[in-house]
């Protein structure tokens, strides 16, 4: 049996709370290949961020574990870069300096000062932020901040990019732009990506596989949908594509029929 790039085996987690332990996840099993684009979708509060944080090493699984290239993951590290939901840029640093912090750390010994500078600028260019490189987060829009966050993650040359609702807070137009950029970059660099999303269209458009999670507590993976659409994908052409719409309705059916959120 060939080893997968990333492997989650029987992952479960229990949070200690004042009212006793709270079981967020049970028996999460997932194998991801190098270069795959995976979306995690599910109702809010089901445990998507928790899965991502376990892979990132920010949370420790109570049972089971995560293997990256056969090695156990138990602490955070730059080979698993995270793009946080609310960008998490350091507000006192410019876009350039934010990326620089990551580059200085990851390529401390392997790149010269000039190479680092070139690499920082290259990554900012990749997300189309070269024109506002020396602006601070409070001087740029939400979409631009998210781009810088992505540039920071890309600049770490991670084996896996973990993205927690990266475009959740953006308007539809900006989101579409960033999705296109992300698709392009991902196909160029062949990164492995796990992205959490709320947005069914986003999931179908970007992913190779969509991992759908059941409602918590004790959430787990409900279904995995393989999206067999050729790359590059074009949102306009796909709008009327029957296969695309089939995938879309599959996800919708899972979310709103099988896992209908019971409102209390």
């Amino acid at each position: 049996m060939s080893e997968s790039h990333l492997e989650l085996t029987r992952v479960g987690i229990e949070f200690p709370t004042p009212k006793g332990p709270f079981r967020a996840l049970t028996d999460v099993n997932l194998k991801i290949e190098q270069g795959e684009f995976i979306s995690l979708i599910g109702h809010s509060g089901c445990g998507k961020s928790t899965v991502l944080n376990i892979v990132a090493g920010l949370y420790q699984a109570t049972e089971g574990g995560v293997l990256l290239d056969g090695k156990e993951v138990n602490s955070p590290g730059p080979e698993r870069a995270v793009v946080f939901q609310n960008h998490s840029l350091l507000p006192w640093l410019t876009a350039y300096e934010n990326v620089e912090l990551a580059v200085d750390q990851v390529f401390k010994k392997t790149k010269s000062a000039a190479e680092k500078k070139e690499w920082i600028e290259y990554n900012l260019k990749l997300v189309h932020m070269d024109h506002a490189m020396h602006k601070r987060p409070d001087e740029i829009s939400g979409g631009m901040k998210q781009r810088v966050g992505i540039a920071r993650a890309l600049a770490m040359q991670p084996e896996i990019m973990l993205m927690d609702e990266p475009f959740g807070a953006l308007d539809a137009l900006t989101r579409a732009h960033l999705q296109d950029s992300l698709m392009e970059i991902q196909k160029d660099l062949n990164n492995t990506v796990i992205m959490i999303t709320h947005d069914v269209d986003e999931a179908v458009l970007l992913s190779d596989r969509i991992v759908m999670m059941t409602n918590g507590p004790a959430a787990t993976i409900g279904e995995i949908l393989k999206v067999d659409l050729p790359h590059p994908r074009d949102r306009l052409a796909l709008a009327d594509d029957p296969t695309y719409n089939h995938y879309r309705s599959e996800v919708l059916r899972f979310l709103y029929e099988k896992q209908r959120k019971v409102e209390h």
Partner: protein
Amino acid sequence: MNPLKWAFVEPFYKLIIGEDRKGQVNLLVKSIGLPIAGLLAFLIIWQGVSSHIHTSLGQFPGPVQTYQQFVALSDEADAAAEKEAAFYQRQEERNAARMAKDPNYEPRVRDYVGPPTFFDQIWRSLVTVMSGFVLASIIAIPIGIVIGLSSNAYAAFNPLIQIFKPVSPLAWLPLVTMVVSAVYVSDDPMFDKAFLNSMFTVLLCCLWPTIINTAAGVATVTQDLKNVSQVLNLSWWTHVRKIVLPCSIPMMFTGLRISLGIAWMVLIAAEMLAQNPGLGKFVWDEFQNGSSDSLGRIMVAVLVIGVVGFVLDRGMLTIQRLVSWDKSVALR
């Protein structure tokens, strides 16, 4: 440089080029006219009230007497400066004459010792307060960072801070005095004991706001930023330098500003009691002196203390604005 960048010049500039005349006049009235009106009202009330207060040292000084005493103190300082210059000139001439007679003569240079003038005492006070404040900050900032980072350290330190914070400088001073006398024994002391007593008293009183506010600033590091730091595998030291310190700087400076204000207030009391040359001792000496000019001189000192305190606070505010990345916070 764009003159419009200077907020102070802007209304005048706009007035001259004729842009929004009415608004600019209103702005000027508000920013210059009203403060002057307040000051005038104060002077009038001061004059009126002081003429009705008769003390054993004569009438309470009004603005005019106070101003006269200020002039007198300036004249004394000028006279002292002349005396000092004359002293050095005489000494030089004397040495030159001796050297001419005897080439092997080692010229003796002695320092001028005269009573400190009022302005010397302002300077001494500033030196003392800044020494105490800087030392306190050097101690308080690292402590603040450590207890801000660790909830265990916070739990351990917090009761101590809460207990020592409200202690008056007057309670510390006797202890400091005894400790300094016992510990600082040297035949050729670099520092005056009175100076050390006041300085350490200032230090003890202005540690706390900086510690508390720095710790609070460290607590503003969000989980998001901590996650960034963890994902990047930043070392503890890099984490503190690159994330914790910059994040806590706005709060830290709030603490430093409070500390400096306290330091200046404490200093005057400490100098009075420790007999350390400075404004506090000046006030005390004038009080003991009890001449008819004394109250006027004390009034001059009161105003100078106020003005210096104000300037110190503005200075800190300016630094705070320069180093603060969070420009959305209105600092006043």
